[in-house]
């Protein structure tokens, strides 16, 4: 669709403008996707060039460097030590010693086992004397994979540190050549609370994320290429091994294996994905706007017991979900107190099928989710709402703006700006909102057509609860769960990219300053 000029745009009516914007947005999607892949390609090219540059720079460093620098290629930190930067030198050297020690003692073993994931499964032997069958355990595929990955991480870290070590030599030589003194250990330490303060602040959080988030995700991705499941648990029964893309073929195949009236994996996946997206959309935006509304209502001038209302709402957060949601779920049952109440009042003759019919169940979970979400959103938005400069409203009032106009022109843009990233994470969070679905419906009602797919999918199942059913289900197909996990990621990432690129708070981060 062609873009129209600003002048033409201004001539359009309000409805036309909105329509135009919406159409622009959707017609822009293919372009956005294309530009995404283009960007990825550019990034790869750039990375390739950067690596080339690094290598040539390392070469020059070696060629032009003095003997201290040259020795540093082998003994990390030697250059720093020799030039009097004791603290840096010791740290580099220590790291190298630890690395070499680790590689010799266990890293080498894990790395060598990684291609096969182990060769020797457990063996059983009958002991006639005691009339028992003794089991001997040997290789452990899971451990090999885990520590193999960890070793690779370690090696990458080592190469990076080695490179830093080289660069420091180069820089030190340059600085010395100009006749200036090098930084002392004390100065190094001081810079950590000043110039380099961000490194100090982030060191711990980032290490945590690396080990407890990045490593597991990396591992999970690798599992998708193995046959790790209940019958190949890698240690006590059969070892698991690499299977290439087989699992992706299974999940993305349109072949119907369960006979007529059933679905292929791909169709089931599509159905669950669609519901997951619908759910995430409603769960995010109903909560957001209603939560904001409640916060504004409580904040409004002239409303009494402000604290009281907030406390009441927060009480529902205080009771853990696994208690309150189970109770609420029971309230909506066919013979629960809600149906009982409605029947006693004579408003309905037979019970409403809150949990029985697919669409009823879907709407009910969204409604109950509002009940859960409003208190949180109320808490979050209260603070931010109060931060909106009061004079903005004052001047708007003088200009004669009514409440709705004030909301449209001041509150909403400000809120969207501050909470934009939160909205996006909340959307992805809702896609992976395990608790609500698991505790309220457990995925029910079951979808007959999809029951041959692993884990018996229900109509309210999200991808994440399906994934849970697969891992804890009859066959514990971890590999399949991994594939689904990866696909979930791909979908979420695509959506986020599109949203991210139109979001004001990222584009104009320095606004509102």
């Amino acid at each position, binding site marked *: 669709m062609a873009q129209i000029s600003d002048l033409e745009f201004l001539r359009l009516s309000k409805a036309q403008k909105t329509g135009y914007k919406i159409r622009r947005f959707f017609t822009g999607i293919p372009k956005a996707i294309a530009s995404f892949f283009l960007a990825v390609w550019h990034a790869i090219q750039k990375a390739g060039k950067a690596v080339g540059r690094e290598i040539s720079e390392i070469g020059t460093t070696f060629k032009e460097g003095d003997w201290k620098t040259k020795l540093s290629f082998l003994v990390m930190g030697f250059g720093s030590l020799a030039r009097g930067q004791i603290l840096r030198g010791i740290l580099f050297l220590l790291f190298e010693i630890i690395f070499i020690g680790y590689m010799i003692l266990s890293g080498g073993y894990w790395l060598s086992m990684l291609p096969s994931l182990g060769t020797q499964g457990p063996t059983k032997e009958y002991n006639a004397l005691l009339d028992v069958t003794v089991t001997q355990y040997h290789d452990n595929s*899971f*451990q090999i994979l885990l520590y193999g990955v960890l070793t690779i991480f370690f090696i990458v870290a080592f190469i990076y540190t080695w490179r830093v070590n080289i660069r420091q030599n180069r820089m030190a030589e340059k600085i010395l050549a100009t006749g200036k003194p090098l930084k002392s250990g004390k100065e190094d330490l001081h810079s950590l*609370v000043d110039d380099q*303060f*961000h490194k100090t*602040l*982030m060191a*711990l*959080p980032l290490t*945590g*994320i690396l*080990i*407890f*988030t*990045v490593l*597991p995700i990396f591992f999970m991705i690798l599992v998708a290429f193995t046959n790790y499941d209940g019958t190949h648990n890698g240690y006590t029964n059969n070892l698991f091994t690499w299977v290439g893309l087989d699992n992706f073929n299974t999940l993305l195949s349109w072949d119907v294996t369960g006979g007529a009236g059933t679905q292929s994996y791909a169709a089931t996946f599509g159905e669950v994905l669609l519901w997951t997206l619908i759910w995430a959309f409603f769960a995010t935006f109903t909560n957001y706007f209603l939560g904001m509304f409640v916060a504004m*209502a409580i904040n*409004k001038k*002239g409303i009494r017991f402000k*604290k009281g*209302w*907030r*406390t*009441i*709402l*927060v*009480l*529902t*957060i*205080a009771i*853990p*979900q696994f*208690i*309150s949601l189970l*109770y609420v779920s*029971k*309230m909506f049952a066919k013979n629960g107190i809600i149906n009982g109440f409605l029947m006693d009042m004579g408003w309905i003759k037979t019970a409403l099928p809150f949990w029985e019919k697919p669409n009823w169940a879907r709407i009910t979970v969204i409604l109950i989710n509002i009940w859960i979400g409003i*208190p949180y959103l109320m808490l*979050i938005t*209260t*603070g931010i709402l*109060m931060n909106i400069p009061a004079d903005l409203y004052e001047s708007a009032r003088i200009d004669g703006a009514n409440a709705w106009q004030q909301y449209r022109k001041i509150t909403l843009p400000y809120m969207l700006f*501050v*909470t934009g*990233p939160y909205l996006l*994470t909340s959307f992805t969070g809702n896609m*992976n909102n395990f608790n609500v679905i698991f505790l309220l419906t457990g995925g029910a009602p079951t979808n007959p057509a999809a029951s041959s797919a692993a884990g018996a999918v229900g109509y309210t199942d999200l*991808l*994440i609860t399906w*994934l849970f059913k697969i*891992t804890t289900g009859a066959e514990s197909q971890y590999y399949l*769960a991994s594939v689904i*996990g990866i696909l979930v*990621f791909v979908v979420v*990432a695509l959506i*986020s990219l599109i949203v*991210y690129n139109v979001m004001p*708070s990222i584009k104009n*981060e320095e606004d509102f*300053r």
Partner: protein
Amino acid sequence: MSEAKRHMGLKASRALSNTAIHALLIIMSVIWLIPFICIVLQSFRVESTGPVGYVVPHQWGVDNYTKLFQTDFPKWYMNTFIAALITAVLQTVIVLCMSYTLSRFRFKMRQPLMRFMLILGMFPGMLSMIILYRILKDLGLTQANAVPGLILVYIASSGMGYYVSKGFFDTIPMSLDEAARVDGATRAQILYKIILPLSKPIVIYTVLTAFMGPWGDYVFARYISFGTSSGMNVAVGLYNWLNKDQIANSYTMFCAGGVLVAVPVTVLFMCLQKYYVEGVTGGAVKG
């Protein structure tokens, strides 16, 4: 319309809208409180111990609470309380470090880092559990030692939850920092002496959310405590009472446990709300 009349009309409409909002808030409170009240009432029922279809007990008493203390419940409660307390402190520190950095510093890797963390958040965490369990097991932090293990996992990835507080820091004017820089303060001093005192609301918000997290964690906590009663948290312990062979004996106790779990969070919020609201309204941000 004369100026005076218009003013009166405005007043009347404001009064009307306030009444409507009050009515709405009352209705909402009722809806929000029903399950809470029901659970509290169940916990005082003594004539039977299983789940029942009525709400008001026929016979009242505190038997369920006294019985709770003969089970492993106090142990679970302490486990969770300790985990929540330590998590609240450490997680707040980490989140604030992260969000402050990303709000105030402009360094080369900043944008890529934020994007990277955003992307990380998109992977469903469910499967990570298997691996985290294995890592913790090799560290000896599962089963009876589950509490430190849980704390470690809770805080380790908390840096990724920087969004809300970064949004808050973004609203504190940069000019404050710059003025302090001119006066010769280091970055660290700016954080402690200028930014933090202005950030009470967000600190309290972060503490609250961090403190609440561990009370409701079921899936992961169950994985880590793995069939060892002394390492369980309240959610895992209480949830086990809902098994079909156990529910008839323990349902009211389950509710009583739920009420006790709600106590610290409620108390904390009631106490902090004063600071919370004061912090926000009396806070530093004046446009």
